[in-house]
């Protein structure tokens, strides 16, 4: 329970703002931004998108992550069989009920077969809006995949301009890259703090902030993160509890409901790393600011992209990156939390499990849909998992890696 005054009150206020944005599937803040700026707003599906490019052309990139548990699906279900994941049906529902009318278009990155086909459905259903499929290379050589991605970015840029966005200018893109780099630093500093002192940065709060960043312009989002960071520093009330430190993985596209994240925490887990709202972290570290900015975007995609089930990993062992993340976060276990019917996440899982077993990292796994409302079973499962870590892990090693 938050106290009404003091630092916790300030934190509560900031988190409250973020939660309001998260729950507003009608995108009121985007409407307000458009009214204020007279510019375009374009939605994008998870996972990766060159937000810098949109920003440089005066376009607000708006992350669309389905309807979560806030939305009653009436029409969307009529478009999808029961064995298709949930995010496309709630996204379509929002399109059909007018929630996304404020958007001038949608971008569908090459994530999986479902999102790919959704791009065509969008074309058919909303013929007057921009529907852009962003094909990204799975070849990561500069002269091959890099060339292809560079052209794809220019195609996107032209498509935005044709809809009324400012034409591409290198100088603007350079500025936008700098702004997003600053934003990435803020995000990373919160992730760092959570790794060190997870009781100070509950994942349910961090998640809401990241979701708020899906609908805010980058300048406002960076400020929100900074305000949150300051409020955290001033806070003296949050105390460490004896919780198990876990990495949650598999939710890079469809997102678990907020209640599920809270349930994981209440069941005795500190989430010290995750892949929620991955667009904020799909590029490792800053993008170069000195080079030709378009080249810099391409280079970042090729060389700085995080391992993910939707990125082909030619060399090395699948799952070793997860082990590295576990070590780096000082985690004691892994929770596989994939959306039902998510082929990329679920096909990755057995490979990752094999590597975890080899490394002696305990894990547990379950599936969710973004509109799940019952968490008792998950709470029991992860609670038992956390207890088993606390009871059976070598106590001497339990917190050693974290510091």
């Amino acid at each position: 329970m938050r106290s009404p005054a003091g630092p916790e009150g300030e934190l509560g206020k900031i988190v409250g703002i973020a939660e309001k944005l998260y729950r507003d599937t009608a995108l009121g803040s985007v409407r307000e931004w458009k009214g204020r700026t007279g510019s375009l707003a374009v939605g994008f599906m998870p996972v990766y998108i060159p937000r810098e490019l949109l920003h440089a052309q005066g376009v607000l990139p708006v992350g669309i992550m389905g309807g979560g548990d806030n939305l009653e699906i009436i029409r969307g279900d009529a478009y999808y069989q029961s064995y298709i994941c949930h995010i496309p049906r709630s996204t379509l529902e929002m399109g059909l009920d007018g929630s996304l009318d404020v958007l001038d278009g949608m971008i569908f990155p090459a994530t999986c077969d479902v999102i790919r086909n959704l791009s065509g459905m969008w074309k058919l259903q909303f013929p007057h809006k921009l529907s852009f499929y962003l094909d990204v290379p799975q070849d990561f050589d500069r002269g091959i995949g890099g060339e292809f991605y560079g052209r794809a970015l220019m195609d996107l840029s032209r498509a935005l301009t044709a809809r009324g966005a400012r034409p591409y200018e290198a100088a603007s893109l350079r500025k936008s890259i700098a702004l997003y780099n600053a934003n990435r630093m803020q995000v990373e500093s919160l992730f760092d703090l959570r790794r060190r002192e997870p009781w100070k940065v509950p994942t349910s709060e961090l998640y809401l902030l990241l979701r708020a960043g899906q609908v805010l312009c980058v300048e406002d989002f960076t400020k929100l993160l900074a305000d949150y960071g300051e409020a955290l520093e001033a806070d003296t009330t949050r105390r460490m509890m004896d919780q198990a430190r876990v990495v949650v993985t598999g939710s890079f596209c469809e997102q678990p409901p907020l209640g599920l994240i809270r349930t994981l925490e209440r069941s005795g887990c500190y989430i010290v790393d995750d892949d929620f709202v991955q667009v904020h972290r799909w590029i490792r570290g800053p993008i170069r600011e000195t080079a030709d900015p378009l080249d810099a975007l391409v280079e970042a995609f090729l060389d700085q992209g995080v391992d993910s089930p939707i990125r082909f990993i030619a060399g090395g062992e699948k799952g070793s990156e997860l082990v590295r993340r576990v070590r780096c976060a000082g985690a004691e276990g892994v929770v596989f939390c994939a959306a039902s019917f998510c082929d990329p996440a679920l096909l990755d899982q057995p490979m990752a499990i094999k590597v975890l077993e080899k490394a002696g990292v305990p894990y547990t796994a379950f599936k969710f849909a973004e509109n799940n409302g019952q968490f008792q079973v998950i709470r029991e499962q992860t609670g038992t998992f956390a207890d088993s870590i606390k009871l059976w892990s070598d106590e001497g090693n339990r917190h050693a890696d974290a510091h």
Partner: protein
Amino acid sequence: MPTPIDPKAPAVSAVCKEDSQLRQKRMIAEHYHRLAGCPGSGEKNAYTFVPGNLTELLRSFDLLPVLPEINALQSAMRGKSREYIAVAEKLGHSEDVCTYVKCDLGMMKSGNVGPTGERLPDPDLLLLSYTGCFTFMKWFEILKEEYSCPVAMLHVPYQADGVVTEEMRRYVVAQLKEKIIPALESVSGRRYDEDRLREMLALSARAEDDLVAVLESAKHRPSPIDAYFGGVYYIGPIFTAFRGTPEAVDYYRTLREEVEERKRLNLGPVTPDGAVDRERFRLVVEGPPNWTSFREFWKMFADEGAVVVASTYTKVGGVYDTGFRHDPSRPLETLADYCMGCYTNLSLPSRVDMLSRYVKDYDADGLLVNSIKSCNSFSAGQLMILREVEKRTGRPGGFIESDLVDPRYFSAANIKNRLESYFQMIEQKRMHAVH
């Protein structure tokens, strides 16, 4: 005015095997036998996929293609897929994911015995030709961990706007030149021989001409072929290991002659239970067939005199009826175009256009979708496709659900009920048209 049909009249007559069927059976068996002999003969192979496969290129290096999808469907037809899927699920693979993948893994873990009862060779190369389906990428990531062999990856851009652009072509050709061909050279120990590839591409084009003639024969009334169930057999050689070979040219010439003769005699298609003598319904079908109960599934149609006159499944390994032919004068570019042109690499609007055109061109009674649980590439969006095609053609759509190779998702009673309802709907539409 349509002739009223007696619904009680039998639709199927006696069983007969045609020369092309026997010939194909022999070709496929010989291929598997040759694969089984690889460890002894020293021949090398590459595991790859059907859509957008590079058979001519592989064969120009004397590499033999192995197609895990085909192995999976063959396992299903032999009644082995349930057991194989169980093996994969026991290893931790989710019940939610592609059953082709699980069936293939289960087969591999159970000794990798192919359809002829002989052990398939381990791959010398995993050629990940990434056309039309993201799951292929995951599939080979999994296999990569099982086999210690190189992986060559060809990423094929999606035709999101219904066109192949010069940039897309350049990207694929660059990968062929700089990644795929060097990998094939390294595995085979042979140099790339473009003249040899050209010869093979010319043979492909000849076979493709005859395949299109066979598929288009269904415009005739009655259709001499079933372009879905029968079509599966017709596409067998050209979509798998035989494109670019003289055997494929001979096979398709023979098949075409047989089909033209049936057309001349006004005969219906051949099924495993006999020929369909009374064509009562002409359908266009979208989606792959079910393989675990393939024959039972086909019989449900044949017994009702329902003939499939066009299908999209027969375009997964290439859409030739819009005019594409492998072009020996531009070998790598034509391979790129081929990869990008396969059916599941087309956007939803392109698929709607194609299906609407089929319904009209083949004068079908309507579109039937067989939605496959474990194939998002096909299935996500099919309900919208159905509605759009109904809207554009004014002909009714039907919808059934099954799976590729998981027998747990084939409910014969349910499918039969839905089919009967669909056929009744078509009948009623006809009655209204008559009166």
